[in-house]
């Protein structure tokens, strides 16, 4: 969008390409219907204007059911087609590839805080590599925000108290707007920045230049020991508590009989509301860490627990 009047947004993800085809189809179909309505309206108004005696006004159509059934069915069939097309792409928007890199995002008034798996942190910016699928694991520290990148044609509300995911596969190098799309208070319009899609080499350079002391999981590990989690959850502990190695991605049977998939959201909830997430065979003795940890700290703990071994949970919608 360099100068001139912008008509089309940039396209920089695999989804955006498919979206553009969907949009062209939608535009063609609705445009045709709109054209038909306009044409009939203007044609009838011109031809049947009062005073135009040339118009034949006799024999009003009275048996209307054939017409009614006709246009009702036609509308319904067209609508059904649009529905199926949009739903198909929506489902694929929620099915991330198994090789996606997990990047953690916390929204708070009024900034996006990003934590890369190798420990790089950024605010109101996100650096990713070309053609490398990324899954964002997101939550909010305060109110609802919405992570929106028009060039990717993707948006996801980020809701406090739960984890949500958004994945994309960037297809073009460049800087693209990142917005908060859900009104979140005074400086809502200022809560945004840029998503930078870099070549592989540039991305490696960026990672190196922004390296921190340790990976996100390592930071989580420090916190894990500091909070004394190891005292119960490690082998050799005297307290009977579930072991965490291999937990991520497994199915956990809870005391109330239900089964939960141990994804990021489950682990977060098990840390903050342990009483509601007690696995079968264990006593509800774990204290809640609600109020003691902010969302970024919880995310580092989640990353640490994931690093202890995982069954791949790829491809399954998290909600």
């Amino acid at each position, binding site marked *: 969008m360099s100068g001139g*009047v*912008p008509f089309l947004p940039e396209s920089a993800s695999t989804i955006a390409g498919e979206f553009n085809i969907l949009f062209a189809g939608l535009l063609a179909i609705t445009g045709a219907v709109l054209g038909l309505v306009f044409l009939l309206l203007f044609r009838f108004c011109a031809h*049947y204007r009062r005073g135009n005696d040339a118009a034949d006004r006799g024999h009003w159509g009275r048996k209307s059911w054939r017409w*009614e059934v006709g246009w009702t069915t036609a509308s319904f069939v067209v609508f059904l087609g649009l529905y199926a097309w949009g739903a198909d792409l929506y489902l694929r928007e929620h099915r991330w590839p198994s090789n996606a890199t997990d990047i953690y995002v916390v929204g708070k008034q009024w900034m996006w805080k990003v934590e890369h798996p190798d420990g790089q942190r950024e605010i109101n910016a996100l650096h990713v590599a070309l053609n490398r699928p990324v899954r964002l694991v997101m939550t909010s520290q*305060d109110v609802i925000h919405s992570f*929106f990148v028009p060039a990717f044609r993707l948006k996801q509300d980020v809701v406090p108290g739960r984890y949500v995911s958004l994945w994309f596969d960037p297809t073009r190098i460049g800087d693209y707007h990142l917005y908060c799309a859900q009104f979140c208070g005074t400086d809502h*319009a200022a809560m945004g920045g840029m998503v930078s899609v870099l070549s592989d080499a540039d991305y490696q350079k960026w990672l190196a230049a922004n390296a921190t002391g340790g990976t996100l999981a390592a930071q989580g590990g420090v916190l894990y020991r500091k909070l004394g989690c190891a005292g119960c959850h490690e082998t050799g502990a005297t307290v009977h508590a579930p072991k965490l190695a291999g937990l991520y991605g497994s199915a956990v049977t809870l005391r109330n009989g239900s089964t939960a998939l141990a994804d990021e959201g489950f682990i977060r909830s098990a840390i903050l509301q342990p009483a509601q997430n007690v696995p079968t065979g264990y006593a509800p003795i774990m204290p809640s860490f609600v109020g003691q940890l902010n969302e970024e700290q919880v995310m580092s703990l989640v990353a640490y627990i994931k690093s202890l071994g995982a069954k791949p949970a790829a491809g399954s919608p998290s909600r």
Partner: protein
Amino acid sequence: MTVTTIGELPRQGEGDSYLTDGTTLGSWLLTHDHKRIAILYCLSITVFFFIGGAGAALIRLNLMTPQGTLFDAETYNRLFTLHGVVMVWLFLVPSIPTTFGNFLIPLMLGAKDLAFPRLNLLSWYLFATSGLIVLGGLIGGSVDTGWTFYEPLSSGYASGALVVVLFGIFVNGFSSILTGLNFVVSIHRLRAPGLTWYRLPIFCWSTYATSVILMLATPVLAVTLLLVIAEHLWGVGVFDPTHGGDPVLFQHMFWFYSHPAVYIMILPGMGVISEIIPAFARKTIFGYHFIAWSSIAIAVVGFFVWGHHMFVAGESIYSALVFSFLSFIVAVPSAIKVFNWLATLHKGSISFEAPMLYALGFILLFTIGGLTGLLLATLAFDVDVHDTYFVIAHFHYIMVGGMVSAYFAALHFWWPKVTGRLYPESWARFAAILIFFGFNLTFFPQFILGYLGMPRRYHAYPPEFQVWNVLSSAGASILAAAYLLPLFYLTWSLLRGERAPGNPWGATGLEWQTASPPPTDNFARTPVITRPPYDYPEPAA
């Protein structure tokens, strides 16, 4: 609708009209006459319309420049909150039902008044009180949550004045419920002899459908708002996750009211258009039964589509699939209406007075709004444009292009009946055309802005969006001027306008068979109906 007997009509200018039956302030403020109550509503919502409109004008002024230099962020947020709250609850929801519904339903039924005249007056007092409370909270306090009051922003982060506004809307809801109840009972019980359901004008059907939604959906809003108030004041955990609540639950409850409320706002407009098209095409409405039942279908199915506001909000993808499907289904009855209106024009004898111009404008703008609604119901498309200007443009095409056009159509069509005066036709046509062009210039660029990715509720924006914002603001200034025009020429008409005959348009409705303005009791004798509605004579082939 021809009647066999309607009794003697009072002659023009000899008093005895509802307007001259009592001239004191008390005779207006304590009236039980549905027609006078309609006037009270009309005056109140006109004030609210211009207050809400002023909010919109300031918003558009601020968006002339990317930096949003006119207002700071907080003031801007307060302005769009005021615009939304005032327009939704103090103008759009009450607009046609409380004014033309109140005025016309008894006339169309051949009745003396609504079923519960005192309740009707109470509705207006509740409405006026709620308006004052809401405006007091909005203008006196600092409320910047937007009209949607999303959680946990509302409970945890909003100022205390929010509670005042929410309470005002709570009171407003009772006015809605009582009005809906009054219409439903009246349409069931007060139809004149011979006036069967299928002889009712379409306006009665659409008002009936609207009333059902008013009665069933409004209580859910009331409960939701009370819960927000309780959470805000006492920290009761319902929606706020820090108190163990669920913010997405709020959205479910809010949209369970607010989506049906969209149909509260558009169904009466569809009723008005269904009266005006046959009158100016001199032709029986095409597909009466389909138009009548499509209103009922919209009212029913409209209760099951609320989740389409939440495709990116964190509802499950399976819910999204269902809500998307139902949203396509609810569009079918609207399509039926549009096609039937077009078929009514076919072989008509069409004239283009101001009410008809507004009605034709309604069809064009509503069709654009409806078709872009289909785009938004398409899941993957919504993910991109949700919460952008595309959505803003879409619902303004329905609410302003549709409902406000219909309101102005009704205002001009029934103006001679309500006031007993004619308005200057050429001024009215000019205003109608100006509104149509001003509207499109304001809102069409917003479709493009939304598609380009400009989020809504932004007080400042990236500079590449400026071209379209300036165009939109230019359109808004034309629209503002065009909306002020009727205020002047209708006031002039009230004072100097030519006296109107009983039936200036040569229309068939029962309301046209009594005097203009009607006497307090509407009809000298109860009419007996023997013919179907829209009984215009068919020309010989």
